[in-house]
């Protein structure tokens, strides 16, 4: 299962390689397997795509215990890089930013 973590930044230039390394380091401390696939900085947002290979998609909820780990990860990133966490989306779902970007790119290629 791939999950996008969406943040709003303050206009600062973020080092995406550093963020990716930080996310992978944090994931290695968690009891869930995960790998940061990409970090994309847009004009207002920062989207971080993480693959959780052992997880299957579950119905949208706010009480799934696994989601607490996602909140922990997002919290670490928000504190470390002084950015505002907004929400996550299952990659490919309606409000998924990266999915739409890829879709738009293919559409016009």
């Amino acid at each position, binding site marked *: 299962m791939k999950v996008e973590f969406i943040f709003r930044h303050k206009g600062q230039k973020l080092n995406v390689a550093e963020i990716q390394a930080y996310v992978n380091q944090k994931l290695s401390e968690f009891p869930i397997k995960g790998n940061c696939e990409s970090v994309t900085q847009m004009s207002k947002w920062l989207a971080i795509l993480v693959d959780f290979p052992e997880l299957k998609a579950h119905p949208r909820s706010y009480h799934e*215990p696994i989601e607490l780990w996602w909140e*922990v990860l*997002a919290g670490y990133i928000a504190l470390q890089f002084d950015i*505002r*966490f907004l*929400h996550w989306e299952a990659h490919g779902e309606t409000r998924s930013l990266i999915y739409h970007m890829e879709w738009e790119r293919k559409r016009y290629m």
Partner: protein
Amino acid sequence: MSLEIKPLNFNDKFDRDLYIYCVRNWHQAIAEAVPEYADAVIPMKHVDALAIGEAMRFDHLKLVNVSFYQILKDGIPMACFILRSASQDENLKPLSSPIYPIIAFYPAEPNAILDNVSALTHVFGWLRGKGFKKAWFRAPPGKAWFLDKLANIPNKKVCEYPGAEYRQRHGIPRAWDVYEVQLP
């Protein structure tokens, strides 16, 4: 002494750090009261990250109509609290209609009982001013802070939270007791 309630702004570093500080103290107080809860869901060492990650997301999406506040005494923050409605029962099953506001009260100094009683009393008055007749207030089990000191505000234990069914399913201990507080 003047008490004031202000919304928390998570874009502001001071507010963010204050909220984390209060929630961390709350979790430490719970860990004292219910040691088996401390690391049961998320280990305590991640409490700062969990607190802010969860709060930012709930605040952004306005899940369960949540809103976050701080209470200041003479300009000095003394507690944070969350106001939300409940759309689920204690076993997290949807309710047909949302119920009273639920207050999660995170004092900056959990042991400053008298200060916390006055802050909480102020919150209840503030809710009353907003037209609410009752509220649900959550407290760590075995350590029902200040409730015995709020003798003039009738309250009763409503449920354990999360409910037994949910806790059994996920193998987690009871986190809070929920009290109904009358706001006459």
